[in-house]
């Protein structure tokens, strides 16, 4: 018997299971622990306008998955509009279009966006070209003057940018500034001006627009900020808060000089943005993510099944864990039980009754059943009718205990009805045979072994963590399978054998 074949098979199973498991934890973000919540935001953009009967086209910049934010799920809701999404210059834009529309129109964009917790630095980008400032004449002079002023007060690129912001935001009247900014400049205009001045210093910079992710209902509006290219990286600078670095609270919508919504064929445009934090279970977030990344994979996964089927599997999938435990107890420790898998079935029935009441009910039922079984022995019944009689008596006993429990106000007496009576019947039968053939001590020993195994299996199978692990990561079963198969070739002593053979080496 060559074990190498088995070892290779087990290694393949083990690493396949482990790999898939790690992939799902690390990449898809499936939670390791039950009940974990994810930082998920619901963003809703509502576009209102009046259509005038001409062809309508509404363009909206929408977010894209980045290192800071991941789009779990998004919807474009409209009535009768054609929808197309395009990516131009790193901007993602959705276009709603319709040939003929009249009256009040409402378009929705909804997205579930997960805040990613990444510590990785922003990606490097080389060969970034400076966009020419296109300042000429007096404008160019004014810009150069401002740049010089800022340069004198700064030490490096980033302080230069901060100085420029200071100058532009300063309330003091400055002719150069007024020339460049004009009357009542918008935030966007100010940032554009900084970018153009920076281009004179050969420093690439760009205008960013996006949403500051804080809870804002109805009144959120896109904010603009600056990104400067420093040390081959884009560094964000918020001119209002003076925050620099990776602006990880800002969801980027688009880059460059443009409006968030471009509408043709409509009037009275009104854009409302809602940002809401959502208490989404991590598992739902990860599952939705899996769905968007690998739709085929997701379609064949457990989380795609109907909920009641999932519930059944959440119980069934813990059985392998119990069976593995049983293998350990029987083949490594040497515990004797009635039947091979009977303790696991008993353990499953404890789910209904809970452990202590389950143990008590089980013991009472088995004891009463055994007493009756010994009486039946005297009647010399044939095997199958005798088993059937025991089964009927077991059900009667269960009924009696439920009624008694109910009258005494013990609720767990009721759940006895879900106790698997066939298991009880078979246990009674086997126990009575062992009792007669090998004596009461052996029967009680095996009975206690079975109940103890069942209790341990129940405790482990009912752990929230275990149930969570096997339902969210069914591939863990591959790992269990490989270990079980390895145990199948374990030829060492059982723990209780050490006791049995102890005398042979004592001298």
């Amino acid at each position, binding site marked *: *018997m060559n074990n190498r074949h088995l070892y290779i098979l087990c290694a393949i199973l083990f690493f396949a299971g482990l790999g898939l498991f790690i992939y799902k934890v690390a990449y898809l973000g499936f939670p390791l622990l039950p009940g974990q919540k994810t930082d998920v935001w619901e963003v809703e953009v509502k576009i209102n306008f009046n259509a005038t009967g001409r062809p309508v086209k509404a363009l909206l910049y929408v977010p894209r998955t980045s290192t800071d934010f991941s789009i779990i799920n998004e919807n474009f809701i409209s009535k009768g509009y054609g929808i197309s999404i395009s990516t131009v210059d790193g901007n993602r834009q959705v276009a709603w279009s319709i040939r003929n529309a009249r009256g009040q129109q409402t378009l929705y964009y909804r997205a579930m966006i997960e805040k990613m917790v990444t510590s990785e630095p922003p990606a490097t980008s080389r060969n970034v070209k400076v966009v020419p400032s296109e300042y000429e004449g007096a404008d160019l002079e004014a810009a150069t003057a401002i740049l010089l002023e800022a340069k004198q007060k700064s030490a490096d690129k980033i302080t230069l940018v901060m100085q420029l912001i200071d100058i532009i935001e300063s309330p003091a009247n400055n002719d150069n500034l007024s020339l460049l900014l004009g009357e009542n400049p918008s935030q966007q205009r100010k940032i554009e001006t900084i970018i153009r001045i920076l281009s004179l210093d050969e420093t690439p910079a760009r205008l960013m627009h996006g949403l500051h992710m804080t809870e804002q209902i109805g009144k959120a509006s896109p904010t603009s900020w600056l990104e400067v290219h420093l040390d081959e990286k884009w560094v964000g600078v918020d001119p209002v808060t003076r925050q620099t670095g990776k602006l990880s609270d800002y969801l980027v919508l688009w880059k460059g000089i443009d409006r968030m919504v471009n509408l043709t064929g409509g009037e009275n445009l009104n854009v409302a943005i809602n940002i809401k934090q959502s208490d989404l279970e991590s598992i739902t977030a990860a599952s939705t993510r899996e769905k968007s990344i690998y739709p085929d994979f997701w379609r064949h996964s457990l989380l795609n099944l109907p909920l009641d089927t999932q519930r059944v599997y959440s119980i069934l999938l813990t059985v392998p864990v119990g069976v593995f435990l049983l293998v350990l107890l029987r*083949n490594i420790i*040497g515990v004797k039980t009635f039947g091979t898998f009977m303790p696991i079935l008993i353990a499953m029935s404890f789910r209904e009754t809970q452990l202590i009441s389950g143990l008590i009910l089980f013991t009472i039922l088995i004891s009463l059943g055994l007493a009756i079984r010994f009486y039946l022995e005297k009647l*010399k019944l*044939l*095997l*199958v009718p005798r088993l059937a009689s025991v089964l009927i008596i077991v059900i009667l006993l269960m009924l009696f205990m439920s009624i008694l429990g109910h009258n005494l106000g013990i609720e767990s007496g009721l759940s006895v009805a879900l106790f698997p009576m066939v298991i009880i019947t078979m246990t009674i039968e086997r126990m009575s*045979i062992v009792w007669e*053939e*090998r004596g009461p001590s052996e029967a009680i020993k095996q009975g206690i072994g079975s109940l103890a195994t069942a209790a341990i299996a129940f405790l482990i199978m009912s752990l929230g963590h275990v149930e969570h692990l096997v339902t969210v990561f069914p591939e863990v079963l591959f790992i269990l399978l490989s270990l079980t198969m390895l145990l199948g*070739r*374990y*030829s*060492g*002593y*059982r*723990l209780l*054998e*050490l006791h*049995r*053979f*102890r*005398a*042979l*080496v004592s001298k």
Partner: protein
Amino acid sequence: MFGLTKKLSMAGIMGINKRNCDYTLVYNPRKYYPLVDDKLRTKQLAIDAGIAVPELYGVIEIEHQIRELPEFLNKYSDFVLKPAQGTGGEGIEIIVGKVKSLYRKSNGHLVTEEQLQHHVSNILNGLFSLGGHEDKAIIEYRVKFDPVFDAISYQGVPDIRIIVFMGFPVMAMLRLPTHMSSGKANLHKGAIGVGIDIATGRTLNAVWKNDLINEHPDTRNPVTDFEIPKWDELLMIAAKCYELTGLGYLGVDIVLDRVKGPLVLEMNARPGLSIQIANHMGLLHRLEFIQANAIRLGSVFDRVACSRKMLTRVY
């Protein structure tokens, strides 16, 4: 704990995992199991090969035949009733005589015809067989054991269990029924296990319920240093069973009848490990010796000679 594990493994003590993993699973092809699991087939096999077995009186295969049982048993004053596929000595009834319409069991108890019929019905329904399959009941000759065992057996037939590996007898023990085992020769039921020196056929130390003893607890006669008669013949029979069954790791149970000599009672494809306790010695070193040195199987005679000569020196 690890110290004990190491000591046991140094002493060559075989655990159940080791037996299953490296011996029964490897040397016993599954297809040959029915030959030994069904005692009827074993019996036929042995008869065909010229090995003596207890004479078969009859077989009960269906419930209907049970009614004719008393009439059938009229011919025999004593017999053994057992399931064809029983394990661990379960379901065996030894009837030593009749008292009017009652049957006397080997432990002196009397049973009625109805009780006997019920027992047969239990056998047919698979109460004693592996996995509860339907079974047959065998009625056969009751062995009258050789008078040399008179002093050291109580209410039953002592038998000799020989472990045969690749056709070589590797270890043997004498199993003596006691009052506690109700005349049965199974150690877990309270029978005494007495180790036998393969080379000489003399008994070594004895174990009863995991305790070392020197005398039979019921008869008070010494059970050690007792010479088993016809030892060479017993070993030859056991060794022959390898060719008979094709099972590389086999337990052969033989009884010595006072008239008919050695009779093979049954064979076992998963013989127990208590034989190591009875011999106060592990099986592994002997098995490994055979594995290492006896690749070319000789004749039955050669193998027995080799076992007698070599094995007692292997530790």
